[in-house]
């Protein structure tokens, strides 16, 4: 696989008052051309720092990185022509209109909206009705679409999207991911970060990041297959006392609420379920259900955090 992005043993530190913050600790990975690659992790994991280094806006303390086979420090000018970057914070000109923002970014890259219209068409038609409106007066969803259009205007070979779906409702998130899939079909490599674990399954491959480190990197399926123990979903009428009872049972290793159920693992891999069921019934639990389930990315993320 030819790589669109290559990162080799990158470290980045920041000074905050008297304390040294290690934002990135020995990060290495590769993204193949045309891949939809996800950086999954909470705030403070180092996702934005990594994006800034790859888009040549920041220099690593140690290590090397390449985008399109160009080195991020020496070839920064060439890289800037080729990548598209949508930062987490809205960074367009609030007092320019939609149209003006688009033509401004097009001019910077020596192109026009018309030249790459096929690429942005699906997104642009949604903001076109507001083209005379100032960007600052757009809704959150529309701002996001404008920012994506601006990031795509020069047909970048690699597109970096920093938390495009944060604070966005479940329906709009789904729609946004459908857009990304369409862009991928046009041959663009996409690296996207998100704190929503459920979005990991929509990527070709993901890196699970926490506290400046990559805990694992694989296909979503590959990650869930590595979960170390059988996982069970337990439900009952009173979920709060069920959680307390499970957590105080020494046969239970981990117990985390997961929507309608609690996901649990046992200290013994071959734990007999009848015994658990009986003691929960004895404690007065009703509507009890216990079933073996496949782990989600979030289960795996928590297991990796605990290691």
């Amino acid at each position, binding site marked *: 696989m030819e790589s669109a992005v290559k990162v080799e043993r990158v470290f980045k530190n920041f000074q*905050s*008052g008297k*304390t040294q913050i290690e934002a990135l600790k020995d990060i290495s990975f590769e993204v193949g051309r045309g891949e939809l690659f996800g950086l999954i*992790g*909470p*705030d*403070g*994991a180092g996702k934005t720092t990594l994006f800034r280094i790859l888009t040549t806006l920041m220099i690593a303390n140690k290590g090397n990185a390449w985008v399109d086979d160009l080195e991020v420090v020496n070839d920064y000018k060439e890289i800037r022509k080729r990548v598209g970057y949508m930062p987490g914070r809205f960074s367009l000109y609030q007092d320019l209109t939609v149209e003006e923002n688009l033509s401004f970014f097009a001019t910077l890259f020596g192109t026009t909206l018309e030249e790459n219209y096929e690429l942005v068409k699906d997104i642009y038609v949604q903001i076109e009705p507001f083209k005379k409106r100032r960007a600052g007066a*757009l*809704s*959150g*969803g*529309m701002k996001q679409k404008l920012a994506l259009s601006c990031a795509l205007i020069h047909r970048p070979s690699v597109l970096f999207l920093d938390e495009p779906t*944060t*604070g*966005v*409702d*479940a*329906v*709009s998130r*789904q729609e946004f991911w459908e857009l990304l899939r369409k862009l991928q079909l046009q041959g663009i490599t996409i690296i996207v970060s998100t*704190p*929503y*674990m459920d979005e990991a399954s929509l990527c070709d491959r993901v890196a699970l990041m*926490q506290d400046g480190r990559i805990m694992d990197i694989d296909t979503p399926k590959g990650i869930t297959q590595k979960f170390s123990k059988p996982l069970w979903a337990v439900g009952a009428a009173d*979920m*709060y006392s069920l*959680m307390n009872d499970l957590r105080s049972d020494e046969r239970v290793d981990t117990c*985390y*609420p*997961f*929507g*309608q159920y609690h996901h649990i693992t046992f200290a013994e891999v071959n734990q007999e379920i009848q015994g658990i069921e009986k003691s929960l019934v004895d404690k007065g639990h009703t509507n009890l259900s216990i079933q073996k389930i496949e782990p989600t990315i*979030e289960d795996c*993320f*928590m297991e990796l*955090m*605990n290691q």
Partner: protein
Amino acid sequence: MSNTAAISVSDLTKQFGDFTAVDAITFDVKQGEIFGFLGANGAGKTTAMRMLCGLSLPTSGKANVAGFDLYKESEKIKKNIGYMSQKFSLYEDLTIRENNRFYGGIYGLTDQQIKEKTQFMLKHLHLESKADTLVKALPLGWKQKLSFSVSMIHDPKIVFLDEPTGGVDPITRREFWTMIYEAAHRGTTVFVTTHYMDEAEYCDRVSIMVDGKIEALDTPAALTKQFNAKGMAEVFVQLARKAKRSDN
């Protein structure tokens, strides 16, 4: 959970010019209940929440919050509620202790009360060694747990949480919900918004707003059944897909 209403709302409406942001919503929240307030971006959640906190006057309709009338006693409402959001919580360049003193002072607690509250909070959160650390030096997960505690420093009857777990790691997110359960257990009413659909399942009851109206309100189990869905995520998508307006 008792049957007394902590929040009682009828036909509450807010118009901005010819735009009806909140369109005659009616609901009750019981004392000690964890009430999930869901909706798509732009459905009117924030506007509704601002009214309930006494920060914005309704155009019409009635509401009683923590036993006080929204029109006549908004200052009393503010004293009896707590508020926390992902965006605004603690002062980053004050220490934990200083934040407590600041918020305790705002709510009229005595020095002695502030001292006791601070000690209890630090112990409960295992943050004793960090009392004099600047808030900005704390990891996000701690900040969120801390600001939840600070939002309840004056023992409010109701606490409003606006997307309290956004961007937080999955383990801390669950610890945060354990804190919510504990608060509700002690009798505090919790009014919470979230974009995490698994969190909707943790609520006693959930309302879903679409285009300014409350389109569904019930326990997660009943809603799941009513919409013939697998869980709240599916219920939400079914309802929010009908929305005609986005968040402008």
